[in-house]
């Protein structure tokens, strides 16, 4: 009955929702910031450690839907070991993918499991909230991020 929904809700997403990776507070984070989607109430706090321009650790806490939780979980996995610049490039690519622009899926790696979200305009912000939050963090913002 719900087979066509599998494009959006792939098993990887359920897995990351049930067992989000890097789901912890980080007491010794170099940077941390809150992200909030006022439309649906999703909120997260993102923590990162940076040394020599490289993200050495990333984690998050918060509550949100399966899409935003999985997106945050995948993001914290993939940005570890990336330079700030590489993380920003990934954000640009991810944003394009989520809003339905053409991108080379190979460059997105695991993040491609979230490609289905572009068919659901009301849910795009669920997937992009963690990335907007990371973007603001890297740009040095201290204000909480909202998707509105």
């Amino acid at each position, binding site marked *: *009955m*719900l087979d*066509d*929904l599998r494009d*959006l*809700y792939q098993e990887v997403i*359920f897995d990351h929702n*049930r067992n989000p990776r890097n789901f912890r507070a980080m007491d010794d984070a170099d940077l941390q910031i809150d992200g909030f989607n006022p*439309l*649906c*109430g*999703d*909120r997260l706090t993102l923590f990162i450690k940076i040394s020599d321009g490289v993200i050495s650790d990333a984690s998050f806490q918060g*509550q*949100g*839907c*399966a*899409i935003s*939780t999985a997106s945050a979980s995948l993001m914290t996995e993939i940005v570890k070991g990336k330079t700030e610049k590489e993380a920003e490039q990934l954000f640009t690519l991810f944003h394009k993918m989520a809003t339905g622009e053409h991108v080379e899926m190979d460059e997105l790696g695991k993040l491609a499991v979230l490609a289905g979200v572009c068919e*659901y305009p*009301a*849910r795009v912000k*669920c997937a992009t909230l963690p990335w907007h939050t990371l973007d603001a963090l890297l740009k040095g913002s201290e204000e909480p991020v909202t998707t509105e």
Partner: protein
Amino acid sequence: MNQQVEKSMPYDVEKIRQDFPILDQKVRDKQLVYLDNAATSQKPKSVIDSIVHYYETDNANIHRGVHTLSERATLSYENSRKKVQQFLNAGSEKEIVFTRGATEAINLVANAVRELVTVGDEILITAMEHHSNIVPWQMLCEKTGATLRVAPINKQGELIFEEFEALISEKVKFAAISHMSNALGTINPIKKMIDLLHRYEIPVLVDGAQAIPHIAVDVTALDCEFYVFSGHKLYAPTGIGALYGKMEQLEQMAPYQGGGDMISVVTFDKTVYNRVPYKFEAGTPNIAGTIGLGAAIDYVNGIGIEAIAEHENQLLNYAVEQSKKIDRLKMIGTAKNKGAIMSFVLDGIHPHDIGTMMDHQGIAVRAGHHCAMPVMDFFGVPATARASFAMYNTFQEVDALMDGIENLIEMFG
């Protein structure tokens, strides 16, 4: 399926459904099941036709032309005012002010009340209000230095009456209370609340946005100073609503907006305002919407608000019974006296995922904070899923809702 109940009902839901063209469609290849009525209701053909008729035959500005079309438009517009008056059992049609909706009506009143309060005064609301009956009063308090007092609710989502009573004092200059909660379905004992407030001579505004399609409202019996509602939850178009106000109150109140139609005489030295209710209706109003509201009231009267309420209550009771079979489902809002709203959460599944997954089965439910963030905070949830019933919903649709929930639980694992 509860055949017994349906057979014993004189209520012909299939006939009613035929009056709502939008219901006969597929969404994502499934028959549409529309259960987001607390957000907005669908419109019967007679309402849609009334708007088409107005634009095709009578369109003109009101209250100013001497030509035939303007007279027709004015007559239809003012007829709607009479219909609202009768629907609410107000003493006079002059006590009905047309607004964009309940929100604008509350803002209109708050704007006038602002002139009457000062530092140390209090405004009383309840913990189950919609944002539209919180924010205008917060804005008033910011401007005046008055304090907002909030009467608490219990775990069932009912007003704790003793605590409400304890908050009432001579400091309270105005009270604004919801007739029925949009997030929880709770119906407040408003007559009892109004009587109590009146003992302290506190004027009361009742937010009837949710109650209006479910409960027969009699403002004369309630004796409230103000009652507000939105047409679009009552099968009328969006962008039209009404404020009932007691004449003695409306006459004392400052206009909300300045402009055409709300004046009698304008010179550069001074303007004399028009009489009530026109004093509050500046500019060319939503004429088509107002006519649509009149047609919606006719339609509801044709079926009978009590019969509608009875049908919706049976749907709600059936849904509550059926939902008990779903272990992971927790109902948010279990008041003894509640209207046809079922707000719920599923253990481990976020309401937004519920919303998308239900949509995939053709079922429209609301997922979110329902413009009642303080209510969500009270229950410790970020959001809920909400199914809300209207006159055209069926027991089969309740079954579809339950099947839909079970399907998504299975998929989520």
